[in-house]
């Protein structure tokens, strides 16, 4: 299965944040109805440089600095989307969704359903998630499980520059509310990114590395950690298959099931707290669909049941990494 509509050849490397910016700019050129609103997105270009130079090109009609009013910001997007525009609203840090959760969960997500399908809400919410910057408990969370639980929302988690661009473009083109969870630690990371506009299909997983011994399903930044763990394990003669769902809602379980039937062992890893995280959902679905193929129970790796700590020594112990993933794979292989 091909997992992307992107051109095959990329000619240059781009940072994650620049790739996002390029995809957004191209989507704005493509569709006059796309506009961006958020705190310090226009004049300043966004606190993470996500919106650099867009004001110069698109002007204040399409690049709007808003007050610190997240509920009104998302509501602005919902209302504008209901009237046919394609808003991109930025929430800066994912942790701030608490302030505007009603607009996301009860309004954006349910509007099409409650209007009997008479309208759609092509709203894109961009935000930065993840720990690793010493930003502490209120600026470091990965809350994808909250959002993926809500019918009507889509959630994407780009793991590198290439997917940041393609998923952003698809989110904007999509007729549903989509939350794009960029990862703070990845902002400066680079990968090959085609120059032309391309979308990565929502709801389709990508096999980032093929292997026969263990399937590692990794979300967002954990894809890179899983690939690093795979390199480490390859040196020990163990071949890890790494699956990047890319979109966590809708979730492409078929790709996962197919992999599990070949490897018979699964590890799910995410940055979010393990309890009630997407790892639980994925493990349950795999057990339901592919129990007979499993040689060991599905293993989950995530964060401990604690807020994200500040001190770097604690934060490092808190967030899953390549070593814990490799260790998890070894444990799975030790089971007969």
């Amino acid at each position, binding site marked *: 299965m091909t997992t992307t509509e992107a051109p095959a050849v990329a000619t240059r490397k781009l940072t994650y944040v620049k790739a996002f910016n390029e995809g957004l700019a191209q989507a704005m050129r493509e569709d006059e109805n796309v506009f961006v609103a958020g705190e310090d997105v226009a004049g300043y270009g966004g606190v993470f440089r996500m919106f650099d130079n867009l004001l110069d090109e698109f002007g204040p009609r399409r690049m709007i600095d808003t*007050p*610190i009013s*997240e*509920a009104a910001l998302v509501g602005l997007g919902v209302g504008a989307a209901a009237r046919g525009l394609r808003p991109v609203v930025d929430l800066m840090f994912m942790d701030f969704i608490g*302030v505007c959760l009603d607009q996301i969960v009860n309004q954006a997500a349910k509007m099409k359903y409650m209007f009997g399908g008479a309208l759609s809400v092509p709203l894109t919410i961009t935000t930065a998630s993840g720990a690793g910057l010493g930003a*502490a408990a209120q600026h470091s969370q990965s809350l994808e499980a909250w959002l993926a639980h809500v019918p009507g929302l889509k959630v994407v988690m780009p793991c590198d520059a290439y997917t940041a661009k393609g998923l952003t473009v698809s989110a904007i083109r999509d007729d549903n509310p989509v939350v794009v969870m960029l990862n703070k630690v990845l902002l400066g990371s680079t990968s090959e990114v085609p120059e032309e506009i391309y979308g990565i299909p929502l709801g389709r997983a990508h096999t980032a590395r093929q292997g026969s011994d263990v399937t590692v399903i990794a979300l967002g930044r954990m894809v890179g950690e899983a690939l690093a763990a795979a390199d480490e394990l390859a040196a020990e003669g163990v071949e890890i298959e790494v699956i990047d769902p890319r979109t966590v809602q809708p979730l492409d379980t078929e790709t996962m099931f197919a992999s599990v039937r070949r490897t018979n062992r699964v590890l799910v890893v995410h940055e979010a707290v393990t309890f009630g995280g997407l790892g639980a959902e994925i493990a349950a679905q795999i057990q339901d669909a592919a129990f007979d193929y499993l040689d060991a129970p599905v293993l989950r790796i995530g964060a401990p049941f*604690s807020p994200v700590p*500040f001190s770097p020594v*604690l934060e490092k112990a808190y967030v899953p990494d390549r070593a814990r993933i490799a260790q998890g794979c070894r444990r799975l292989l030790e089971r007969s």
Partner: protein
Amino acid sequence: MAQRASTASKKSAQVSTQVIKDLHERMVRIRLFETEAGKLMEAGKLPGFLHLYVGQEAVAAGVMAALRDDDQITSTHRGHGHAVAKGVGFREMYAELYGRVTGACLGRGGSMHINDLTRGMLGANGIVGAGVPIAVGAAFAARYKGEDSVAVTFFGDGATNIGTFHEGANMAAILGLPVVFVCENNGYAEFTPQSGHMLLTDVADRAAAYGMPSVIVDGMDAVAVHRAATEAVARARSGAGPMMIEAKTYRYFDHQGVKGLRHPYRSDEEVAEWRARDPIDLIEARAVADGTATRAELDDVWRRTRDEIAQAIAYAEASPLPDPADLLLNVYSG
């Protein structure tokens, strides 16, 4: 009906020598704590974010000098100044910035989350506006328990655009709670000037919408802030309900860190104009001119504070790191 004194009257300038010295010392403590923290950050010694308070010292000092230890405050992402002025110790504050287990939050919180219950410091906060309703709740608790403490909530101009501010203000007003709302209007929300995020010139006008009296003060003048705060606190303590103080002030450094003028959003001239009205220079000039303190006495405050800070930083650096085995500490009680 809400009323507003146009600005705090200049006349009732009866402030004791002791108060002037107190205000001065609190401001010097903040200034030195913050400038040293800025240097440590620039030297790459501190993880995370650092929102410095330098320039706004007169507000924290003026308000806190009007409070008792059992009065409660809630603070913002720019909270070091409030904590220092409320009496939180340098050692636990620096240790927290370093992420050490001896820190105010045991290394779990960092710059944006410093708190100290023994000082009535109910916490800095990483979520803009979140401290406002918490102060309302603290004031509610005081009245509920029959205590006469008050709660003060600090917030920026930008924060008054968020729902929690409006809901908290209305709640405090309708319940008649002993809360003092202190808006530190430094003219910017991150990189957006006030004119870019509200059409009002005076944030204090927002108080009227909740039937709450308000006053506007020069936030570079600690004595003026102190006088307004003393009135508002006395009013709240007497059971007359909440009040808002808007202090017009300025931050010298960038929104985050010391200097990060990637896209200049304010001019050097503007910064220089405000710096020319430095709150510490102002009070020192006044103190020397009217004989409240000698230059040598003032210098001594700086010297003592510098020593204390050097020791606190040494303490923080020598302090142990938290043990990852304790990751789940304090997630729940019991």
